[in-house]
Structures are given as structure tokens and as C-alpha cells.
């Protein structure tokens, strides 16, 4: 009626006659999106509570061995009875990265390894003071030629699925790590294993292709897993590593991008675990982690925002704890590039940087100047530095080397990979400009950066580059051999300083094969003096590893290799 009368005005769009349909269409569009969201929303926040409950029941019922199924699968009332020996408390930890995989052999980050260590245990671990102590191993013996490691296991330990820990399990674990069909990013460290032999129920012989002194350290990253449970899980081990370990906590659930939950292992071989549950919340943003700690949603957070450490420490309800970690931060120098070829120039660069100010202002105090090529806690550490801040001396050295007016150089840095990486690089550039060197700073995203720093000598564009070195095994070998041996020029190894010193080479080779700790320490101390003087890098600082926690927690022990001893924490 009215519509038809007006039609001419709306000729182009025809709005008029369609009014009702259009309102409907709008409603339908919104409804479709919402419906689709809800349809898919398994584990999404909208349905968080229900899906969590479902997962709990599913995981426990499908993966727990018969013995523990009864206790876990049934109602919460029964759960408390079986776990009465624990405190009944829950520890909620805020972590910055989510796991890629929960397969103990597939780990690449210390944070997730830290969680895995609660589920599955290695034969040995490195203690907070750097010594290697047995966990599942009882004792060990190395053959005189250094190629056979005989390891005796502790007796009477059972995996969470009820399988016994025995030599076959160790053999299975190591052979799985070596299996090319299994994704093991850290396999490189294990490639020296020739074969593994189960001598008797509790004795394993590991045969190496050649003597390798840091091998015991390598074993600290091999989490022993239950053969049957692992075989049954197949590919599912990546998402649901239930029953596979001997550790104090058992895997309960992993809601990707959100949290990983572990529950106490009631049959743990080394006393009843204190917490009945541990929840690791994935909160990538440091400020958010901090806010959740302060609001009481979390009990402990890894790496709070460094800029807030001062205000956090001044609070009564929160404590901050930090330690010098085993991560060395340095500016690598391409020792075969133009002016950088001269030792005096490289020393000059070292004298030009005010490490104390850098740590104080840029890192908010979260670091300690490097005084050696090995961090403290690592075998063979000897303090030979630091190079004291002395711009005058730096200028003199430059002049002696024939560069009184400096030269031009490019400093590259990753962006967002390390704590305040670009800020550190910019600050260093500023210090170098102060002694007359023209510095160009370039930032890269991490993958491009990795390609750049791994280029071979004839293709490399490297001059100066910022890097952090924190090997998964805190043994002096891993801090030195790949970096400084002349056979390890990139891309074969990681000597992208293209550092070549025959004396250093000899010591590096000796250190790799000498098993006597005292002798080894001596070797690495001698090496330290040589490398320190040659200065293939600008020695910066050992980065700090920091956690913040509610003051109700006690006995928070940090490992210098950026891990927390969660099992030792007490609450209240």
C-alpha cells in the first residue's frame, strides 16, 4: 500500500518492501555466528566448566591403569580419601608459554620441561649448586676408556601406570629418543650413543661411540618413561602423557592455550607429594600474570614484568625471588670481519660498555656482569673479569689498532626473544658511539635472525650480534665446544665468531674426553683465560631468573637453569 506508493524513491536499493525480512536477516546472521561458536566451543570459555569436568573423567578413565583407576575415576569424596596424606592444597602457577607437546622427549623450553619433570624423572638431575645428583639412578660407573656407562637403578620404583622401573624401561626410553620416527628436537646430544644394553633387572650399560665427558649431564634431559604406557598411547602421548612417568605428579588435563593440570601421585616412591593438585596457567603477558598474582588468582608466577620488581618487592603479600641463571648474554663478534679481526679492537669494545648501568637501568637489576666464559654453578667457572667500564682505555686501544676515528659496524638483534633485547642492543650501540664507532642497529624476527647467524663464513653478513646462550645441559662442554672450536664454524657448529685458536682447540678437545672432574675444571679454567683475552664477544651479563609468589608460599627453590623446584614448595 504505502510501500508501493513510495517505491520510486527507493528504486536503487528497494529497502522499503523488505523491512521485515531484513530485520530477520540481521537476527539470523548474528544467530548463525553465535550458534557456530557454541557448536564448536568445546573447551572455549563459554562452556569452560562443563567441558573441564568431562575431560577430567575421560582422561582418567581411558588412560589410568587398573590399579589407580578406581581411586581416580570415582567421585571427589573418594579422591580425598586416597590422597589424605597430601595437604589437599592446590598450587596455581602462571607460566608464559604453552607447551607445543607434552611428550617428554619433545621438549624445547625450560618452562615446559619444568612441568614434565614433575611427571617423569631422569636418571640424574643437576642440583641448584651445579652438581649432578642421582634421581632414578642409584649409582653409576664409567669404564676406564670413557665409553661405557654402567648405571644401577633404584629398586622398587613403579611408574604411574604400575609398570616397574627397570633396565628395559631405560633402554626403551633412550632408544625411543634415538628413533628417527619420533620427534626429538634435542636428539643431537644423544647421537653419541652406540647402543644400550639391559644387563639385568636394575643394571643398564650405555655404550658410546667415543668418550664423551658431559654424557652424565646429557642424561639429565632424558625423562624415563614406561614402555607399555607409551606404546599404548602412541601419538596421543603428545597431548595426554598419562601414566608414563615415575614422578610425584600425574598428568590430568591440558586445555591448550589455557592450562595444564597435574594431580598428586598417591603411590609416589619418595614420600607423598605435598600438593594434591598443580595447575599451570598459560598467561603469555607478564603484566597479566602479575595482575593475577596480586588478585590471588595465582600463587606463583614465572618471570613477572622486570619493570615492576621494585614495587612487587615492597609489598607485604608478595615475595620476589631471583637467581643468576645459566643464560649468558653477549654480543658476538665476527672475528674475521675487517677491524674486528684485531684483538685490541675487540677488547676496546668490551671496555666501552658500562655493564653495571646497563643492568641497573635497562634490566631493572635483573642480571649480573659476566666475569667468565662459564656461568657460576658450572664446573670450571673461574672469575677473570669483568672488563671494567673504561671508555678512555677503549679509545686508546682503538687508536693503537689504527682506528683512532673508529669505524662503521652493524649490530643485529632479535626482537622480543630475550628480555629487553632491542633496548640492550640500542644501549650498547650508544656506548660504542661514545668511543667513536658508528653503529647501525638492525632488528629481525627470530626465524630470520636464526638464519642470519647460522650463515657460513663465506656468506655471513655478521659483524656484531646479540645472543643468549643457555644450553639444556649446564656442562662446561656445552658452553664452549660448539662456540669456540675451529671445527665448529657455522653451519657445522655454532662458532659464528669464526674464532680460531689452536691452543683453545686443544683444551676444548681435552675437556670433551676427560672424565675426572678435577682435571676437567682445570682445563676449562685455562680455556677461560685464553678466550677471555681473545674476546670473541662483548661479555655482557648472566641473565636473572625471577619468580614472584604469594607470601603464603615457602621453600621456593630456584634452579639456575631457569627452573623452579615445584615439589619442594610448601603453602601456609
Amino acid at each position, binding site marked *: 500500500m504505502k510501500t508501493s506508493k513510495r517505491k520510486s524513491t527507493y528504486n536503487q536499493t528497494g529497502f522499503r518492501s523488505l523491512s521485515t525480512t531484513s530485520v530477520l536477516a540481521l537476527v539470523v546472521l548474528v544467530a548463525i555466528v553465535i550458534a557456530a561458536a557454541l557448536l564448536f566451543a568445546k573447551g572455549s570459555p563459554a562452556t569452560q566448566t562443563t567441558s573441564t569436568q568431562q575431560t577430567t573423567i575421560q582422561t582418567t578413565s581411558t588412560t589410568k591403569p587398573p590399579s589407580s583407576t578406581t581411586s581416580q575415576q570415582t567421585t571427589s569424596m573418594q579422591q580425598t580419601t586416597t590422597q589424605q596424606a597430601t595437604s589437599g592444597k592446590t598450587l596455581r602457577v602462571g607460566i608464559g608459554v604453552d607447551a607445543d607437546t607434552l611428550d617428554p622427549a619433545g621438549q624445547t623450553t625450560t618452562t615446559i620441561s619444568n612441568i614434565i619433570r614433575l611427571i617423569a624423572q631422569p636418571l640424574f638431575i643437576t642440583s641448584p649448586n651445579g652438581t649432578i645428583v642421582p634421581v632414578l639412578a642409584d649409582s653409576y660407573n664409567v669404564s676406564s676408556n670413557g665409553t661405557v656407562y654402567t648405571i644401577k637403578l633404584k629398586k622398587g620404583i613403579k611408574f604411574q601406570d604400575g609398570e616397574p622401573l627397570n633396565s628395559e624401561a631405560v633402554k626403551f626410553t633412550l632408544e625411543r629418543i634415538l628413533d628417527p620416527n619420533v620427534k626429538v628436537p634435542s636428539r643431537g646430544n644423544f647421537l653419541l650413543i652406540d647402543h644400550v644394553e639391559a644387563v639385568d633387572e636394575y643394571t643398564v650399560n650405555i655404550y658410546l661411540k667415543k668418550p664423551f665427558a658431559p654424557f652424565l649431564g646429557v642424561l639429565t634431559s632424558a625423562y624415563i618413561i614406561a614402555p607399555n604406557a607409551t606404546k599404548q598411547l602412541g601419538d596421543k602421548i603428545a597431548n595426554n602423557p598419562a601414566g608414563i612417568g615415575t614422578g610425584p605428579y600425574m598428568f590430568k588435563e591440558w586445555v591448550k592455550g589455557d592450562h595444564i593440570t597435574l594431580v598428586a601421585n598417591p603411590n609416589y616412591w619418595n614420600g607423598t607429594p605435598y600438593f594434591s593438585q598443580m595447575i599451570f596457567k598459560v598467561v603469555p603477558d*607478564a*603484566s597479566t600474570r*602479575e595482575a593475577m598474582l596480586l588478585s590471588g588468582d595465582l600463587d606463583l608466577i614465572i618471570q613477572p*614484568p622486570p*619493570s*615492576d620488581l621494585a*614495587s612487587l618487592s615492597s609489598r607485604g603479600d608478595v615475595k620476589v625471588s631471583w637467581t643468576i641463571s645459566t643464560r649468558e648474554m653477549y654480543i658476538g663478534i665476527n672475528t674475521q670481519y675487517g677491524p674486528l679481526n684485531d684483538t685490541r679492537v675487540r677488547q676496546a669494545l668490551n671496555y666501552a660498555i658500562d655493564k653495571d*648501568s*646497563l643492568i641497573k*637501568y*635497562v634490566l631493572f637489576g635483573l642480571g649480573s656482569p659476566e666475569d667468565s666464559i662459564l656461568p657460576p654453578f658450572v664446573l670450571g667457572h673461574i672469575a677473570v673479569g669483568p672488563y671494567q667500564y673504561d671508555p678512555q682505555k677503549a679509545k686508546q686501544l682503538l687508536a693503537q689498532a689504527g682506528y683512532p676515528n673508529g669505524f662503521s659496524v652493524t649490530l643485529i638483534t632479535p*626482537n*622480543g626473544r630475550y628480555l*629487553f633485547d*632491542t*633496548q640492550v*642492543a*640500542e*644501549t650498547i*650501540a*650508544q656506548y660504542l*658511539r661514545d668511543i667513536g664507532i658508528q653503529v647501525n*642497529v*638492525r*632488528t*629481525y*624476527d627470530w*626465524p*630470520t635472525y636464526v638464519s642470519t647467524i647460522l650463515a657460513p663464513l663465506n656468506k655471513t653478513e655478521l659483524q656484531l650480534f646479540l645472543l643468549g646462550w643457555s644450553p639444556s645441559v649446564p656442562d662446561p662442554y656445552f658452553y664452549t665446544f660448539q662456540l669456540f672450536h675451529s671445527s665448529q664454524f657455522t653451519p657445522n657448529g655454532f662458532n659464528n665468531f669464526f674464532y680460531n685458536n689452536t691452543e683453545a682447540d686443544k683444551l676444548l678437545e681435552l675437556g670433551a674426553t676427560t672424565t675426572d672432574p678435577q682435571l676437567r675444571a682445570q682445563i676449562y679454567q685455562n680455556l677461560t683465560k685464553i678466550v677471555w683475552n681473545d674476546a670473541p664477544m662483548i661479555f655482557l651479563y648472566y641473565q636473572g631468573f625471577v619468580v614472584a609468589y604469594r607470601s603464603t608460599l615457602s621453600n621456593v627453590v630456584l634452579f639456575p637453569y631457569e627452573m623452579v623446584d615445584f615439589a619442594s614448595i610448601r603453602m601456609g
Partner: protein
Amino acid sequence: MMEIKFGWLKKLGIYNDKIIMITSSRTGMFGLASLSSIVFLSLIVDLVSPYNPIKGNLAQALKPPSLEHIFGTDELGRDLFTRTFVGARTSLLIALLGTGLGASIGTVLGLIAGYLGGAVDYSLMRVADALLSIPSILIAIALVAILGPSTTNIIISISFGLIPSFMRLTRGVVVQVKNMEYIIAAKLLGLSNFRIMFKHVLPNISYISISQFTLELGGSILMASGLGFLGLGVQPPYPELGTMIGTAKNYIGVAPYLILFPGIVLLLLALSFNLLGNMLRDIMDPTSRVNMK
């Protein structure tokens, strides 16, 4: 009323329709004023400011706004006011060049597609469809990652995301224009396609590209700063607004002003371009001119 208001312009001899329209658009005037003040400040900031935008004093790091540093200082002790306006200059430069490049390529491709039609048209427009269906920020991220972060490469990446929308826009108009009498006449005269396209069609559709260009400037400045925020911005030590805000995120607890001030300038820049773009569209588009009268 208009007569009185613009009497003095009339005396100066520059009074005409367009000026009335420019000056009577209050929002457009706001855009123009805010844009020109930011541009002015960013051009003279090096001369006026006693501080170096690159070299800082670590001991002065993270100082809140004060009379000495009216925006405060950043994490390396550099004056934030100086850096903000030098950063605005970088952002402006990237947006102008990036949009210009994207608009030129997009317009030419759209012109070719629209004018030639047929298979050329179909394939070009499917490419445009494809590009439009990927969030442009993702293409830009990938391109910057390929080419490496630098001012030039960010400009290229931004232009890439703009090509399809300019293609579509131009093609749409060209399809209408090419059937007009004068174009048909030109064809009958035996002029080459190239000549018709660029000498006869292009000038008659350029008004659309120009107003669209101004509107897209706002979007480009947001895109460039978004890349900077993700860590793919221009190289240090030169500041750029998005990179500054991205870095400031690390200091959100102690120095919120590091996020506040560069963000306000960024918002004002994008806002000014949008308001100006709307005004230009009203002025240049003949149909909307009719509507206004």
C-alpha cells in the same frame, strides 16, 4: 549568511564554491587543523627540542611527565615528546608513500581490468578477491618477514594490501565511464587503447581515487603502526609510533604515559585523515555536491 561569513575571502578573490564547502565542514576543518599542527610539530621538533630523539641518558630513564620532559622520558632516558613527533613523521612518511604506491598500482590495474574487460578483467579481479580474503595485516607481516623490516619494505607491504581495494573501486567506475559518448568517440577516432585509458578515462575518474587515497591514509597509518606494534616496524633508533607503543607495553605498570601520548597522536593522525577524506569526497564527488546544495 554565507555571503557575510565569506566576504573577506571574496575580496581576496579566492572565494568560490569549494572554499565554502571546505570551511563550512566543521569536522573537515578540525581534521585539517589537527593534521597540520601535528605535521608542523613533527617537522620542527628537531629544531625546537633541546633533546636528541636517539641518544638518551640512562640515568634519566622512565621519568614521568614534568616541566623538563612534558611527555616524560622513555626506557632509555630519551625525551618522549621529541620521539613522539619524530615518530609521527616516520609514520606519516610511511603512510603517504605506502598509500601512494598502493593507490597508483591499484588504480592502473583497475583501469586495465575495467577498460579491457573479458578474461583480463576476470583474472585480475579474482586475484583482487583472493587478496581481499586474507586479512591484509597477515600479508603485510609475511612480506615484511620476507623483505626484512625497514622503512622501504614496510611501505611496500602496506601498498600491497591497498592494491585490491583501489582495483575494485577504479574498475567499478571505469566500467561506467567507458560507455560514455566521448570515450566511444575517441575509439572511433582510432586512438590507441593505452592513450584512451590514460589520457581520457583516468583523468575523469581520478577524483574518486584521490578522496579514497585520503581516506586510506588513515587506514595505512594504523596498519603501519600495527606492524610496528608486532615488532616489524622501522629499524631502531628511529622512532615510529606503533613500535613505540609496542615497546611501551613492557613498561605498562611503571610508565603508562609511554603508551598514552604516542597513542593519542596516532589516533589524531588517523582521525584527521578520515575527516579530511570525508570532506574531500564530498567536494570532489559530483553527486554528493548536488546533494549538498
